[in-house]
């Protein structure tokens, strides 16, 4: 009984201390990590999505809020004068969250391009979603009212062979982007007009 008790006490104390310590470290490094992700993940993705713009989406980024959802938005002005936005949505993959940067033309409601940002998928398998552009290029020029589900589930997106879970995560992120866009578009348009 004594031994049992000591096992329970030691493990509990250890995990509580560990949890507290990690929460503290996470809190202190958070702003720095966000800055790094912006510089090394989001900015390159946005650059690839908006190949033909006349402004600096990174510097002009802003937050919009509607129905208690806050979203960081990167505005773009296309070469032909049309307005566009890019923002990140998340899906859940094999190794955790998969971030998908989605660029949308605000005037035509069409996707300009999408790129995978942060992920922890298996190197060489799920990570192809980021490295091999043939998968994400399916989204290019699709209307925001397209069914972004995988073909298997009746949608319009071909999964990568051997990486169904990651494909589903990207599809899930695209559907999340659809919902965010529907909810926040009025706010975004209002903000850009100002």
């Amino acid at each position, binding site marked *: 009984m004594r*031994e049992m008790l*000591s*096992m329970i006490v*030691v*493990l509990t104390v*250890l*995990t509580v201390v*560990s949890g507290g*310590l*990690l929460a503290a*470290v*996470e809190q202190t*490094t958070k702003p*720095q*990590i966000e800055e*790094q*992700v912006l*510089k*090394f993940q989001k900015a390159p993705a946005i650059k690839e999505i908006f190949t033909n713009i006349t402004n600096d989406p990174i510097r002009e980024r802003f937050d919009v809020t509607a129905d208690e959802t806050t979203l960081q938005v990167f505005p773009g002005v296309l070469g032909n004068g049309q307005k566009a936005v890019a923002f990140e949505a998340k899906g859940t993959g094999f*190794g955790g969250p998969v971030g998908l940067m989605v660029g949308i033309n605000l005037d035509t409601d069409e996707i300009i391009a999408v790129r995978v940002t942060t992920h*922890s998928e*298996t*190197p060489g398998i799920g990570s192809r979603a980021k490295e091999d552009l043939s998968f994400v290029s399916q989204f290019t020029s699709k209307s925001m009212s397209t069914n972004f589900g995988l073909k298997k589930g009746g949608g319009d997106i071909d999964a990568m062979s051997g990486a169904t879970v990651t494909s589903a995560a990207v599809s899930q992120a695209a559907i999340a982007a659809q919902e965010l866009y529907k909810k926040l578009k009025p706010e975004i348009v209002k903000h850009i007009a100002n």
Partner: protein
Amino acid sequence: MAQSLVKEFTKGLWAEIPPFRLVLGLCPTLAVSKTVENGIGMGVATTFVLVFSNILISMLRNVIPSKVRIACYIVIVATFVTIVELMMQAYTYELFLKLGIFIPLIVVNCIVLGRAEAFANKNSMLPSAADGLGMGIGFTMSLAALGAVRELIGAGTLTVWGGSPIFTIGHGYIPFKFMLEAPGAFIGLGLMLCLMNLIGQK
């Protein structure tokens, strides 16, 4: 006392150098020793985890009940690994991108658990710290050496820090790409071990 500390420290540098002598921790060795830079980054991260987990485990060795000791070690090691991961994301993001999934995998690195179970568990704090530091530095040197061999043969360059090579073999050199693949790491590791045994024989 000081002498035994030096002994615990130096045994990790040659006599029991990981991964050559202990042949533990092969997964990160094969996966990330593509370049010197990756090898050093992985080695430093592992050293940090080794030193602090060894210190903490030796301090708590009389408190931890033996039936749940492995679970306790995992909690301690995982905590330090997560700290390293967050720190790398915050300050050396490019290296973090290259090492990727292999940083969280330090949790199950056999060297870390092996030292906890075989050494820190039975020794006091200072020798355990010396042991962790020696093993960590030995591991870093091994990864850097293996990385140098693989990068030199496989890509014809040497990159120590910051992404631009400090040395490049002339343009006429055709890189032997096989050395950058995992089987190339196995062969490189085997040949280096062979060489070490040859030196040790005399």
